[in-house]
């Protein structure tokens, strides 16, 4: 799905993208979602923490695929036919694995939304920091 297809709510509304991992649902601000792709091939990144499921090659670059079940207490998801939600953050793209087909919902912007991922702070927290070793 391309960006232009992502619905935009009215002025006082906000649109979110909902996706699922295991029994949990997470939300992302719709405007941050750049693309949703089917995962055909994913490549492991040895040495990365276990929440990095792998890397997906996309137009000459790689997108790290984040498995939220390794960060939140979620029973082991199957990821049978996973989708990757590609999110633009800090001039870089990262992807979240989803077991369900993501959909969009619109709320009035005064409603507080649970399970919303603040991509900026997520990026800062889970970005692999500079350390000598990527060892277990």
């Amino acid at each position, binding site marked *: 799905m391309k960006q232009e297809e992502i619905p935009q709510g009215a002025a006082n509304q906000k649109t979110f993208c909902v996706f699922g991992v295991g029994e949990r649902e997470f939300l992302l601000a719709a405007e941050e979602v750049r693309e949703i792709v089917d995962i055909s091939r994913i490549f492991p990144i*040895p040495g990365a*923490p276990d929440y990095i499921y792998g890397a997906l090659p996309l137009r000459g670059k790689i997108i790290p695929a984040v498995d939220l079940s390794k960060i939140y207490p979620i029973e082991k998801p199957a990821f049978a036919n996973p989708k990757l939600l590609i999110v633009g953050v800090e001039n870089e793209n990262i992807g979240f694995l989803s077991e369900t087909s993501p959909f969009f919902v619109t709320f009035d912007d005064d409603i507080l939304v649970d399970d919303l991922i603040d991509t900026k702070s997520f*990026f800062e927290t*889970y*970005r*692999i920091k500079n350390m*000598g070793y990527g060892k277990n």
Partner: protein
Amino acid sequence: MGKIEKTELVEYFLAEAEDYLNVLGFGIPQLENAVDRTPILEELFRAAHTLKGAAAIVKLTATSHIAHRLEDILEAFRNKRLVVSRDTIELLMLMLDAIAKMIGDIAEGKEEDQSVEEKFSGRVQELLDSLDEAAETDIGLDMAEEEVEQKRETAETAVVPEVVEPKEASVDTIQAPVMTTEAAEPKKEEMEYSFGNFIRLELHKIEDMFNLIGEVTILKNHMLKKTKHAGDLSEEVLFAGKRLLEEVNRFAERHSYSINDNTKYVDPLFSEFGELEFDRYDEQNIFSRKVQELTEDIAEAMKELMGFYETFQDDVKSLDRVVNHLRSDLSDSRMMDIGRLFQRFARPVKEMAREAGKKVDFQISGQSTKIDRVIFEKLFDPFMHMIRNSIGHGIENSEERVSKGKKGEGLISLSAKREGINIVIELSDDGAGINTGRIMEEAVKQGLVAHDAKLSREEILSLIFLNGFSTATETDMTSGRGVGMNAVRNQIANINGTIELSTETGKGTIFRIRVPSSMAITNVIVFTYASMEFVIPTSLIEEVVQYEQPLETTQSDGSEGGLTVDYRGTSIYAKKLSEVFHVVGNGRGEKKDGFVIVCSVSNKKVGLIVDDVFMQEEAIIKPINQFLSGLSIYSGITISGDGRVRLVINPLKIFEDETGAVAITPTEVESDEGRRVLVVDDSLSVRKYLSAFFLARNLKVFTASNGSEALKELEQTEVDLIVADLEMPVMHGYELVTRIRAIEKFRHIPIIVLTSRSAGKHKEKALELGADEYMVKPFEESAMEDALRKYALLQSH
């Protein structure tokens, strides 16, 4: 082309001004002692003149004015109306400094500082006045200026849009097509960058083209490979086709007309003819004929297909040639002479030598060696650092040199040459050389090696590349700022380069830096480990050797790691990738043969043990996603022609801890002072890494490879902190924590769980069982330090 913004123009100006300043800065000091000044003067004059013109365009009048004066003086030198003296050269340097300062200000977005000119304007005026008087008595000022200006224009070779200051426009005849004479204000549209045969374009446009051509190259390589495969296939098919045809023909000979005597014809018509009167066909005959026909059709089609394939192959080969041409042309467009880099050091060398009270001659050679602009820019800092070291520590002062029978003036030289796809740059000095004894002393003092360690000369020299290593007794202006050779090595590794050094006491030191000549497309070696593909840039590889016998283990405890491989008669340290990242699995594991990729890491040869090594390939290495950039064992990624991700291994990061840990035996290091930490982890690498980390913080370290060993160790040794992994053989971390908390005398010891499990439930469980902290590997050093402070193992800031 649209109108160019002034700021954009200023950027162009800044880019070129640097070059001209370098030419001037390098050339002016040479004037004093040069035998034949004419070529130097020509070059300097052109630089000053172009700088003046370019500054005027962007309305930097003060800069332009000084450059104009500079040009006047150089002109006078050239016409021999003025004698080159130390005094005038000093004045020129002062003027140059003023220009450099103003340009520096502009680059920072400030205005020109008009006041800088005051420092020397008097002297310049005086000098020029004396010239003017002379000129007037000769041919008259007006004529002279016009003539001079024309000469200047013919001397002009640079690619800048050329415009003179408005006040000179009236005497200008040559520039008429460029500037409308009636317009006082030059029209920017007409000053587009299409002068002569040059255009200027922004670097990123070339970069973009480069990326594209890189993609094309890789696709093309993929296609070549596939074409070859298709060729092999078609040959096979053709061969099989021939055999089929032969067989069919043989079969047909026997059967197409043969008549079986026993055949009972159903068709009553046939019974009317005798056996030889009518060709009778049974099913076999008919089938045989059909097959024959079909096979011939196929053979015909095959021949056509082969014909097509041959032309197609030729086409692909032409495409290959064209793409290669295109690439090398484009590649040339961003190649620069390395001499321009070398020139930039000329002045700093003089200045640093003066500050250090030493006499240093600076020589360069191989200036015309071409190097990629990207690499060019990344080399300045590391070389500056090394030159600073050479002047600060290497070169002795004159008296000392003379007493040793050397020339009073020290020599620092930079040379470059091409070696295959690499550029080798040597920085050498004829100073005192590096004192290995002193390195060893310092390394022991800084806890980097054990005091009784037996190291080879090479190993000792490699210590200077360790993080935090410095021999400077006091921090001075020129060196010893603690950045050290470690930073230099890392900067060079970032551009896929290597550094080596050789030194001879009393004779001097040579640093040899090897970098690829181009960054855009890198030659890599593809290898597999545990069915995954990785690459290493060829420039980092010494050799690939095959081994057929099991490798020797140097670790007495039999744990993995610490293998040695025989390489050209000496045994070198080697490592499996599985030790670097546990998760990869064991590769071909117990298989007894494989390959060792031998690399040179900070003066030492080390080996990486892999499963299979494939051919060299050309690849575009791209930076790894920011989210993953902390994984420093990877220097980037490449994507193969058929879309597979290959991680680029940085051997430096894999082996740097090993080169550092050459002599550390963590469990035996004696330090009576200091608190004690027990590290429990089944991975030797983690134990080593943590040991080095804690030792560096003056803690005493004990290690155990599983929970059960840890309990034994605790019985014997009193410790102040336990750092434990969760997943371990024999006894895992949960059980260890539970048991420790159940034993009264251990109950008080803080436990940090350090695991690769980041899931919340693991954390909850560990904390519930009695762990005090929960950290996820790879951990951040600062977080560990915070924890150490919390449990009073480390003093607060």
